[in-house]
């Protein structure tokens, strides 16, 4: 029987090739995700070793919650004086993109790309991990250096002067004193790494007299433990810790690996979706090929083969296909990983040179997944083939038996219900870990997909007939036959379409959720925001409080306030807290006050609570609550008011002075402003332009502009996700091409007859292509239907202030469906050409 397995494989090479390709792509991406993350993990590990090699100890601030308070600068000298310490250096690091250099053409380096980071310069390669390549280190005010790759690619020249956008405003004509190298190879991941002197860093980032950490190198043959003990004597007992090199290294690695894991897992997720799609294609291929071999099976049975032997022959074929596909997939995966690295590099994220690591785990997983998927998909067809009666050998037109449609319906609807129930459960009360959420929802989605696939043959015939109506009307006989062919084998149409359904349902879910979030934002801005301007920083650095002050100083505004966020402990629980000018709040946001009144600007010992929070804490207006800050300070604040509208702000709000007093967050995350009565937007525009010029790093938007910006950012996120889902769709299209090729083969005689009685090649091609388009359309519509279900589920589960009611982007989804149908048309190009080229005589006498 083994010989038969190989004969069959040989005879159906072309047909198995497409199946193999589907598995190869899926396995390839799984392998790529592992090879990529293993390689990156290894090279980042080396990088971590290198960065931390020169630092024996580090002293740094800690806090249980919130931002730790920086260290007092004087500590550096005290620590340096300790015996056994060769060098102790204080560092200041700016927030991401806090400092942005302006290129000679007047533009900044793309702010949505890799981060721009600024550090205080340390004149020691071991402690600082940076070495000078050209010029000198920055030393004075308005001097900076930059890593050599960023300088080269952005056209910065040592010795020239550039403007620097900083939190304290634009520093004009700063000199680029030199270029630097990070580690041994300047593996910056595309980040722009800059240095200024320590004094300058303290000035620019508003942290005079403090440092973020102190790096320490010990003398050789020093007892580290003794030194640590000595340091402990010097540093404050609260909010400061000492860590050793091993800890630093481990933290650094974990930090890098987090990023690697995200990339790896995202890739893996999409690879698994693709593999899942392949199941449908493999199932289809085996069903059709075996269907064409029913007589052969019958003959074997008549000659004495038992059902077990037949089943084994078929599963043997599946095993061989799976093995070959997995092996090719393994090789392809290594190639894909290299391609992805090249892609990242082209996008500007210069990844470190990674070794190609194909670990045993990767190989085992690739083989298991590839072979497993193929075997599982071939199981049902193998069973059907094994149950062929010996008599089938004698009958003309015998077909492969299938499990009854009743059973399919029952199993399908059960799976569908389970999927919906599990999905609903997963969405309503999601498990705590992200992994479990993904697993639960992934299981639910898979159950729904399988359920729909099993049930859909019931509707495949009427639906494809309905869809085919215009084709039959408009395309003549070729169109009519296309419609008939698309509906003549509902099970085949259903499974082929189902493969496409998966990709499209995920894409439309993403589109629907995105649209719902967008429209909710529109409602929120409409109902809860009265501010004329919303100001945010494009980076994470936040907005310097000077901006709000500058705006207020113009006198053109009735209300201006920044919003600062920090973590505090309130009544024993760690919670977010907002600091803002409470007196101007009424003109900017609707808080929907439930009790009390907003305090005047000069009252600083108050707090405004959301009603839910007040209820939880059992406090009301006039009660006093205790707030503890990261610095260790505490404040006793009187509840001035409670509010109910939690669309924009949902945390306790305190006057800015409270944060200033406690050393909490000093930067605004965003700023809201309303024009004074009688000042029109047009009249204020020059002023706005002026402020914009002073602080180029922020965006000053009207509510409408803000909405546009937000929608654009959602759209670009959607594009990335959908680009990755395109893989699943491509595999489904391969499936359509494959099914059509098999169908064409199966209908050779029919095609021969059609050609004999006068169907032209063009008409044959058109017939095959439109059949494919109808199958694709069917799959696409199923996908959109499932996408609506998923979208509805996700939107209902999302918090109300994030996505309100279901909002379907009809135009985009219609476009998506049309593109899918057109893609089906294109996918069938090859099978259509084959069908057109059939030799009429051979086809007529084909058996």
């Amino acid at each position, binding site marked *: 029987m083994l010989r038969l397995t190989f004969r069959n494989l040989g005879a159906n090479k072309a047909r198995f090739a497409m199946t193999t390709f589907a598995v190869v792509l899926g396995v390839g991406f799984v392998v790529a995700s592992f090879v990529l993350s293993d390689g990156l993990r290894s090279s980042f590990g080396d990088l971590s070793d290198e960065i931390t090699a020169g630092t024996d100890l580090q002293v740094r601030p800690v806090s249980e919650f919130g931002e730790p308070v920086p260290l007092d600068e004087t500590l550096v000298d005290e620590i340096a004086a300790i015996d056994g310490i060769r060098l102790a250096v204080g560092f200041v690091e700016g927030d991401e993109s806090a400092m942005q250099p302006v290129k000679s053409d007047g533009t900044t380096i793309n702010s949505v790309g890799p981060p721009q980071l600024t550090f205080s310069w340390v004149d020691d390669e071991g402690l600082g991990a940076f070495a000078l390549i050209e010029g000198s280190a920055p030393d004075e005010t308005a001097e900076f250096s930059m890593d050599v790759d960023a300088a080269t690619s952005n056209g910065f020249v040592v010795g020239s002067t550039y403007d620097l956008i900083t939190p304290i405003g634009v520093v004009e004509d700063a000199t680029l004193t030199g270029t630097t190298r990070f580690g041994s190879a300047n593996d910056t991941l595309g980040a722009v790494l800059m240095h200024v002197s320590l004094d300058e860093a303290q000035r620019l980032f508003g942290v005079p007299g403090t440092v973020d950490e102190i790096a320490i190198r010990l003398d050789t043959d020093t007892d580290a433990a003794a030194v640590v003990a000595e340091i402990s004597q010097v540093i404050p007992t609260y909010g400061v810790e000492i860590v050793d090199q091993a800890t630093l290294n481990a933290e650094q690695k974990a930090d890098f690996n987090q990023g690697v894991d995200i990339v790896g897992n995202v890739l893996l997720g999409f690879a698994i979706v693709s593999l899942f799609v392949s199941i449908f294609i493999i199932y289809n291929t085996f069903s059709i090929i075996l269907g064409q071999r029913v007589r052969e099976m019958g003959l074997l049975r008549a000659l004495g083969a038992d059902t077990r032997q037949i089943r084994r022959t078929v599963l043997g074929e599946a095993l061989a296909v799976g093995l070959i596909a997995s092996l090719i997939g393994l090789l392809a995966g290594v190639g894909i990983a290299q391609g992805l690295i090249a892609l990242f590099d082209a996008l500007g994220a210069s990844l470190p040179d990674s070794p190609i690591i194909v670990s045993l785990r990767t190989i085992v997983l690739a083989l298991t997944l590839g072979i497993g998927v193929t075997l599982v998909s071939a199981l049902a067809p193998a069973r059907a083939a094994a149950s062929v009666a010996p008599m089938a050998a004698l009958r003309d037109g015998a077909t492969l038996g299938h499990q009854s449609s009743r059973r399919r319906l029952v199993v399908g609807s059960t799976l569908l219900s389970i999927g919906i129930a599990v999905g609903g459960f997963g969405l309503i009360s999601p498990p705590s870990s992200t992994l479990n959420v993904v697993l639960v929802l992934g299981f639910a989605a898979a159950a729904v997909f399988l359920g729909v696939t099993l049930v859909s043959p019931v509707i495949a015939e009427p639906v494809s007939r309905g869809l085919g109506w215009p084709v039959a009307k408009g395309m*003549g*006989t070729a169109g*009519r*036959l296309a419609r*008939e*062919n698309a509906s*003549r084998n509902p099970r085949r149409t259903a499974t082929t379409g189902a493969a496409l359904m998966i990709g499209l349902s995920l894409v439309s879910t993403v589109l629907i959720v995105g649209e719902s979030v967008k429209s909710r934002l529109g409602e929120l801005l409409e109902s809860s925001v009265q501010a004329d301007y919303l100001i945010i920083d494009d980076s994470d650095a936040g907005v310097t409080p000077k901006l709000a002050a500058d705006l207020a100083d113009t006198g053109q505004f009735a209300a201006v306030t920044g919003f600062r966020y920090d973590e505090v402990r309130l009544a024993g629980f760690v919670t977010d807290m907002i600091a803002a000018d409470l007196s101007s709040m009424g003109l900017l946001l609707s808080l929907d006050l439930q009790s009390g009144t907003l305090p005047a600007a000069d009252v600083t010992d108050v707090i405004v609570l959301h009603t839910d929070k007040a209820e939880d804490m059992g406090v009301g207006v006039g009660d006093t609550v205790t707030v503890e800050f990261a610095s260790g300070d505490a404040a006793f604040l009187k509840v001035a008011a409670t509010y109910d509208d939690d669309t924009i702000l949902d945390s306790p709000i305190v006057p800015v002075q409270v944060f200033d007093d406690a050393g909490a967050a000093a930067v605004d995350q965003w700023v809201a402003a309303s024009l004074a009565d009688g000042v029109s937007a047009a009249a204020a525009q020059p002023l706005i332009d002026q402020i914009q010029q002073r602080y180029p790093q922020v965006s000053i938007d009207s509510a409408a502009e803000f909405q546009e910006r937000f929608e654009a950012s959602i759209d670009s996120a959607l594009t990335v996700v959908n680009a990755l889902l395109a893989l699943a769709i491509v595999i489904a299209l391969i499936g359509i091409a494959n099914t059509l090729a098999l169908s064409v083969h199966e209908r050779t*005689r*029919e095609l021969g*007859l*059609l*050609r*004999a*009685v*006068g*169907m*032209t*090649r063009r*008409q044959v091609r058109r017939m095959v292509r439109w059949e494919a388009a109808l199958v694709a359309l069917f799959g696409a519509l199923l996908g959109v239907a499932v996408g609506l279900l998923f979208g509805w589920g996700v939107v209902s589960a999302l918090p109300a202030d994030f996505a309100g009611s279901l909002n379907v982007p009809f135009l985009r989804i219609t476009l998506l469906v049309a593109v899918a149908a057109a893609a089906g048309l294109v996918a069938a190009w090859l099978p259509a050409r084959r069908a057109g080229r059939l030799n*009429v*005589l051979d086809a*007529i006498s084909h058996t």
Partner: protein
Amino acid sequence: MPSTTTTGIETDVAARAIGATKFYGSGDTEVRALDGVTAEFERGHFSAIMGPSGSGKSTLMHCLAGLDTLTDGRVFIGDTDLSTLSERNLTLLRRDKIGFVFQAFNLVPTLTALENITLPMDLAGRDPDQEWLDRVIDAVGLADRTSHRPSELSGGQQQRVAVARALASNPEIIFADEPTGNLDSTTGAEILDFMRDAVDNLGQTIVMVTHDPVAASHADRAVFLVDGKIVDEMMEPTAEMVLDEMKLLSRR
């Protein structure tokens, strides 16, 4: 319209082969399926091509019908020299000028009987001549079966649909390759009667390949093929005459 090359002689010939030669393979394995066949098939006649298995009957028919090309020689449908036609024009010629009845698998399973009958005209985007169509359907006795699919028809009914299709477009000539080969003798006789009827009453031209002497007896004329050559010809054949001739030929 297919381009035409006229022979110069206006005759009442629907199809004609001149020195038709067809080789398969080459060298030792060369098979001469047709070896210089010259024959004419008159309009309004029912002709039978007879001969033992492997004598080249089907090959001759395929070449006459534009389904296959000759190695040497020429074939004409009416005045049209098929060797001058492109693939596309051959297809159009088959669609518009020729009717086909094959031994089996004559119908498109997804189309109803009526749709199968009008298929060539539908492919041409032409409306069938309703009066003619009704007559044809009536003649083959399928009026109450037109909306059935092939799978719902018996073998004999399927062949009748096939004959109706061949007739429906009122072609220059109809080629039938062993149209009764898969049928029992009674059903076969019915089909042959229809074909006879089509020639006598509807003025059709039919060329039928068969090795059944009884089938040949329905024709006006029988042409005998052996090893790719025409060896004999018989007008108004009867079953006995044909049988005797066949015995004779097989002894050669």
